[in-house]
């Protein structure tokens, strides 16, 4: 079977792993801890592909009907 690169699919938005510093900034901006972020499973196809570790925060740049593009953050959790 041909392996498909899901990140190239038109419906899959761009996922970026944040480093320590960026993560801290995001958490500070919303004055929350990681648990208050929306979660994403480590088994998620995109997460597997970009090899994000458990406990990492990923930034997702989605297309938005209202603003063109919207930024979303998700916290990687183990199953």
């Amino acid at each position: 079977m041909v392996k498909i690169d899901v990140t190239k699919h038109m419906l899959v938005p761009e996922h970026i792993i944040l480093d320590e510093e960026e993560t801290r900034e995001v958490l500070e901006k919303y004055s929350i801890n990681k648990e208050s972020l929306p979660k994403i499973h480590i088994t998620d196809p995109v997460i597997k592909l970009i090899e994000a570790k458990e406990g990492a925060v990923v930034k997702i740049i989605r297309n938005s009907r209202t603003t063109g593009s919207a930024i979303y953050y998700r916290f990687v959790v183990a199953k």
Partner: protein
Amino acid sequence: MKPKRIKQIEFGLLSPEEIRKMSALKVITADTYDEDGFPIDMGLMDTHLGVIEPGLRCKTCGRKVDECPGHFGHINLAMPVIHVGYVKLIKNLLRASCRSCGRCLLNPREIEDAKVSLQKCLDNGLFNETDTVFKEVVREASKAKSCPHCGAEQKKIVLDKPTTLREERHKLTPREVRGRLEKIPEGDLPVLSVNPEIARPEYMILAVLPVPPVTARPSITLESGDRSEDDLTHKMVDILRINQRLLENRDAGAPQLIVEDLWELLQYHVTTYFNNQTSGIPPARHRSGRPLKTLTQRLKGKEGRFRSNLSGKRVNFSARTVISPDPFISINEVGIPYQIAQELTIPARVNRYNIEVLRELVRNGPDTYPGVNYIMRNDGRRIKLTEKNAEHLADEVLEEGCVVERQVIDGDIVLFNRQPSLHRMSMMAHTVKVMKHKTFRLNLCVCPPYNADFDGDEMNLHLLQSDEARAEAMILMAPQEHILSPRFGGPVIGAIHDHISGAFLATYHREFNYEQVLDILEKINWLKGMPEPDRVDENGIRYWKGISIFSLILPEDLNLDYKASIFDTDLPEEDTIVRIRNGKILQGTVDGRSISAFKGKILDTVVREYGPDEGRKFLDNVTKVSLGAISQLGFSTGIDDQDIPEEASNQIREGLQMASDAVAKLVRSFHEGILTQLPGRSLEETLEVEAMKVLAKARDVAGEIAGKHLGLGNSAVIMAKSGARGSMLNLSQMSGSIGQQAVRGERISRGYENRTLPHFKRGDKGSEAKGFVKSCFKDGLTPTEYFFHAMGGREGLVDTAVRTSRSGYMQRRLINALENLRLVEDGTVRDTDSVIVQFKFGEDGIDPAKSIAGNPVDMEEMFKKRMIYNQENDPLKKEVKE
């Protein structure tokens, strides 16, 4: 006190010992009351189980009605029975455990593994994941052919719904089942989803049945003096009777067959006692044939305890009655009948500033409005006012610190609501106006948000009982705050029907004389003097244009250009394009596009730019001016508004006949095979499409011909064109032709063999045979046309019925999913645990109510404003320059 957080809930089972221990009485008699109406000892209504009759005392706790919470009793079952609620679990346990040694049918290592993964789920707080572990254990264990612990051979166990378990044809009695469950060792239970600390699997086989307290199943005494027992009591009686018979038969050594039959009957009764809708068995019925409402039915569904009594409740301080219109009250007012005002109260704390006012109210008593119904004295005693004690209470008892429950008066804030409450505008905070007659009165402009009309609609009203609630309601829920809807970013509250007709009549080429202007201005309490007349005729009589009068209620610096509802190519632009400069209407006609709910341009602008309160005043004034004008001029429509000249009807008839012929020709060419097939369609489809096209055109042409003879002098046309009510299509159906009737989007085709009705030849594909209605509503339909019209009409009714139920369910699901979400100050949307759901509300942070038809800015409007400014000689420019 700090709110507490529920960490976990434990679900356990009651052991037979526990049931006996908590029981206040062993029930053995199936009877309830004796001839004198006293509860029979050891019966189901024994006063050991609690009291429901005033005067009696509970024999267990010695308290009276309402003080005694009721006490459980118990029934010792002659033979054990299975609890329906647990059959699935029982089946799984039997399958997953050894029939001889009772161990879980996994090898010790697998059991350990399962325990480890269970613990992991619990540690991570993933309580939902435990189910997958249990399922896996049961699936693997039931595969075992023999026990890995004792080597015993295993047999297949099936569940024969609802409560019979079989092991390879052999029926397992509940007693046998219990025997097996008892054998399962404690160490194996956790992996089988049973916590041995709070439950044993054999508790799922009932040897003792708890009897609910009488307070949970009160009997009702009818007017005739007859007693009517609760359904649960009836069920308990059945259980007790069968239990008694079973006991007697068993002890008398009756044949096995009879005992087994009775045992099964007992199982049936216990099963239906828990759930009378168990699939596979007939529901137990009342003598009248109505199915009994047993335990599960009390909790489940819309009428169950949760949805009907816990999520929603009946409340005090509320009223409901029929609604009727009143154009003379403001949109934020509601008219309340005296009868209701005297019943509903608001608590007022007495202080030194209000004591004299309240004293007068108290003196009035409960029967003279405005009065007081109750007084809470400082010692906490609540005294009901009567005509007799009012005087005394006012003079002697009333003091600072008392709470007086005074009747509703003008100006109180109340919530007003109409079901179905589909959006937030279904419940708004109105100001009370107490008035004569027995209905709630509301301004017609608030009909659209409530979706109310006056064909018998009723509405609810709730009194706010605290200052905090009143403040909150006043700021958040007042109707003017809801003129702009978050649903589409435009006005939902606005002029309707006659307001629009009135505005149109007043502003379309209309002049008013002195008396008329006076009469209209009087209604809006105009105090700035008579405006300058627009025209003085040769006799010196002064006339005012309608648009000048209407301009008086506009904000003084309003500038606006837009197309009116009557805008179409036939009418001159100065009538149909509205230009407003500095609050003066220079040209155009005020109609639906100006002031109506959903479309009103002026209304929209006023609310946006001058605020909700100005918007409210504007609407109130529009109502009064429009209705003032329409009352001056008079307006009515009747059947003769649909009259068209003879020649016009002939013309229409001719046109329709031609269309009919055209369809006949199409049919002929279809049969001859010379019809040109459309790409991607079969020949039949081509015919249908072509015929539909011809007939739709014919209807439109008929409408046009009719429309030509119906001008703006016609009331029905005024209503349609100004956007007050109805459309030109409605009118053309009344005086032109009704047109093609459709079912499922195609010409009517079903009914009899190859024809719609026996009036037509088989295979007739002509216009008449396929549901084209040539007639108009005014002339009336032929019988076949009438039938086709009914077919089309019925589809519409069915569609609405289906749509409402489906969208209702969808809305319920959405509400349940979204009810806990909250918009936080930083613009994020979070749930109750403060977990972020959206980083910016709607991803753009725009309040849809403040958006312009959904867009954050209205570019077009901005450009238009600029263009107006750039125009040479535009008064706006002059104004700004000066």
